[in-house]
């Protein structure tokens, strides 16, 4: 992974000094609430329901074991000994003190970490595929370019105060796992006809109040121009994006208002001036950054391992885990492993300090000392030998990290919700927990198969509910919490937005609503169909009938 040189280190050190001074001025009354807000937000600090929340950057989800241990120690010392991994591959602390944040940043800087631009109206953390560099279907490892884009976006003076937040995702695989169409800018790296690195660029995607999938603005962009082309896009947005209404301030609204053709012609006109400007990426810079993401020193191994085969045949628990939580790897004899942060009945994405230490140990012992955070809020060991999988499973299980539910109904994506977040209209974690308990039978979960259930506590959509096969949105009606359900959303190459099935439900009803949706699928599915396929084939009508039919008749009985 990327290692800082003196330029990188000086920048984060100077940031600590700057933020310490800003905090001092705020506490001394020299900065008003309104003036401090953008400063603290650009440093990931929210003022939340119970305490401030600090979001720490994990660039494109890459962490070293050393960094994870530092996070664990910070969580123990300054918080309640746990952290929450987010859908932007970052980590949040829910209980730090505002006055302690400069010290936390100073600690982070010692392990090449920071909280720069993790919130606020600026370019946020660059995200990518959690299997970058190891996925068999990968065409291009996008991490070197992600790092180059990260550096360009860090304290970019022209784009320091945009109309609204701005999110960039990159991918380099045939099967998109970075949800590039859901981002303000999405970049898919590929090799063109001349076998040169090129980029397909999407613009104007995003969830939130007005979910829109991105539109292709350029089919082919030479990699050298990645930064100047982004500058052209963000400049048009910075100048012309709406600033009068924060709900209409994302770039997607501008793209929609102008139309993609008019927007594109403005961007291209800007880019005509910027093309080949000094921010054009040099061969030398790509050659400098790329070795940081060079393949690990893999051993030459057979892809099969007899001890693994024996363990699979004799150990049902291990077999179930291997089926769901172990993923293909481009190097024979190695696999990627997902450590589940979705044990049934616990907040999705949370890890205790003790768990973080145990994951760091696993990474050191079995996966070259590195790990990744996935946008599904799990942790990944990317380079585990097949012969080590049983040991990894045993240790992960001992630490509550081996729920064999990756990609299953209980691998829920979920925002912190109304328990923690002051934006939320409704709680989300208790809904996730109730559904996990309703579906606590592993054989049944495996029978239901691949399905994505996403929960957001408000329309800001941090839980990505629009692209869940089942999406749940918390809403406020007359001061009480209700839940709107949609089905048919999907991420990936065939991304789609879900359709709302009808009136919303109370929290108590949610497990049975999900149960009824699953019942329809199990009745109607053909042999090969996953839940999303059945929804796409049948539409929402039969699901709606099942959910509301019974509800209506139940109400009628009461009325009689």
């Amino acid at each position, binding site marked *: 992974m990327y290692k800082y040189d003196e330029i990188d280190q000086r920048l984060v050190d100077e940031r600590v000094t700057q933020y310490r001074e800003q905090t001092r001025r705020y506490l001394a009354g020299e900065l008003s609430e309104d003036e401090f807000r953008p400063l603290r937000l650009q440093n990931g600090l929210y003022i939340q329901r119970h305490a401030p929340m600090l979001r720490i950057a994990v660039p494109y989800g890459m962490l070293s074991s050393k960094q994870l241990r530092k996070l664990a120690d910070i969580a123990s010392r300054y918080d309640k000994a746990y952290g929450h991994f987010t859908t932007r591959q970052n980590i949040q602390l829910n209980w730090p003190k505002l006055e302690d944040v400069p010290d936390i940043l100073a600690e982070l800087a010692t392990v090449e970490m920071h909280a720069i631009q993790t919130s606020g109206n600026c370019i946020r953390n660059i995200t990518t595929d959690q299997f970058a560099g190891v996925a068999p279907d990968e065409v291009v490892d996008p991490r070197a370019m992600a790092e180059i884009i990260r550096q360009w976006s860090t*304290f970019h003076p022209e784009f320091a*105060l945009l109309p609204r937040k701005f999110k960039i995702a990159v991918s380099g695989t045939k099967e998109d796992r970075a949800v590039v169409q859901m981002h303000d800018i999405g970049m898919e790296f590929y090799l063109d006809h001349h076998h040169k690195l090129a980029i397909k660029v999407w613009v104007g995607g995003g969830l939130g109040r007005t979910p829109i999938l991105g539109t292709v603005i350029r089919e082919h962009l030479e990699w050298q121009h990645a930064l100047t082309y982004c500058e052209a896009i963000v400049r048009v947005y910075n100048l012309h994006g709406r600033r009068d209404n924060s709900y209409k301030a994302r770039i997607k609204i501008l793209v929609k208002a102008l139309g993609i053709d008019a927007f594109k012609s403005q961007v291209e006109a800007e880019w005509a001036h910027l093309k080949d400007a000094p921010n054009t990426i040099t061969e030398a810079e790509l050659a400098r950054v790329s070795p940081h993401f060079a393949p690990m020193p893999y051993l030459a191994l057979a892809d099969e391992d007899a001890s693994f085969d024996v363990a699979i045949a004799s150990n049902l628990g291990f077999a179930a885990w291997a089926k769901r939580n172990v993923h293909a790897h481009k190097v024979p004899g190695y696999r990627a492993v997902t450590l589940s942060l979705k044990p049934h009945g616990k907040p999705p994405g949370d890890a205790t300090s003790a768990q973080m230490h145990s994951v760091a140990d696993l990474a050191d012992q079995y996966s070259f000392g590195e790990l990744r955070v996935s946008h599904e809020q799990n942790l990944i060991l990317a380079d585990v030998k097949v012969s080590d999988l049983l040991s990894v499973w045993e240790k992960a299980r001992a630490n509550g990290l081996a729920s064999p539910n990756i990609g299953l109904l209980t691998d829920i994506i979920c925002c912190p919700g109304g328990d923690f977040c002051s934006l939320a209209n409704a709680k989300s974690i208790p809904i996730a927990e109730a559904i996990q308990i309703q579906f606590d039978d592993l054989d049944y979960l495996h029978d239901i198969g691949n399905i994505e259930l996403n929960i957001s506590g408000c329309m800001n959509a941090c839980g990505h509910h629009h692209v869940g096969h089942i999406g749940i949105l918390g809403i406020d009606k007359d001061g009480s919490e209700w839940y709107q359900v949609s089905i048919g959303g999907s991420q990936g190459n065939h991304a789609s937005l879900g359709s709302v099935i009808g009136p919303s439900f109370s929290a108590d009803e949610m497990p049975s609503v999900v149960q009824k949706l699953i019942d329809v699928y199990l009745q109607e599915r053909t042999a090969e169909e996953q839940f999303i396929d059945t929804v796409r084939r049948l539409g929402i009508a039969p699901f709606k009938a099942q959910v509301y039919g019974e509800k209506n008749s139940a109400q009628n009985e009461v009325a009689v």
Partner: protein
Amino acid sequence: MSNLIQLTNGAAHIVDNAWTLIKLPATQVEARKQAGKVVLFKLTGEKTVTETQVANTVIPANGKLIVPLTVLIARKAELQTRIDANEIGVWLDTHEVLETLIENQANLNALPLIAVHVERCADGRIFSLGVLLRTRYGFKNELRAIGDVLRDQLFFLKRSGFTSFAIRADRSATEAIASLNDFTQPYQGAVDEVRPAFTRYNRAG
């Protein structure tokens, strides 16, 4: 004490302000200034300043003046001798369209000063306007940030091509001056240093 910071050959000093800022008279009509200008103004042709306001703007007979963009355009004939005498600068709001200035003042460098007024410190359009004035339109004279100009924007303003900063009256320019140098080695090329770190230094070590 003056609240104006000026950069001269990279060094920042607090200097006396030789320029008088000319404002438009107040209007009864509420202007929708924060709206995206392309979306609302360019397409609809909606004006944010009325002709009456422009006509009623009082222009003192002497001294160096920074006049509103709309006044410069509408009353240029009246101002021409003073423009020739280097006594007229122009200011624009962040929602105003830069092309309007260029169309009416082809030689920007005939103006000794251009100021950009930022109503709220969180309005980052000022940065793009500075960058465009410097890089696209070749403006070489004093570029001043006015309005809700606070310490924590200075580093970005400097990098976006601004060379003077009128710190908001209730804040200390003496303290603010330090933030011009919050970071010593920025990553990306910008107006003040066009080379990104990767061509400025041999990072390969």
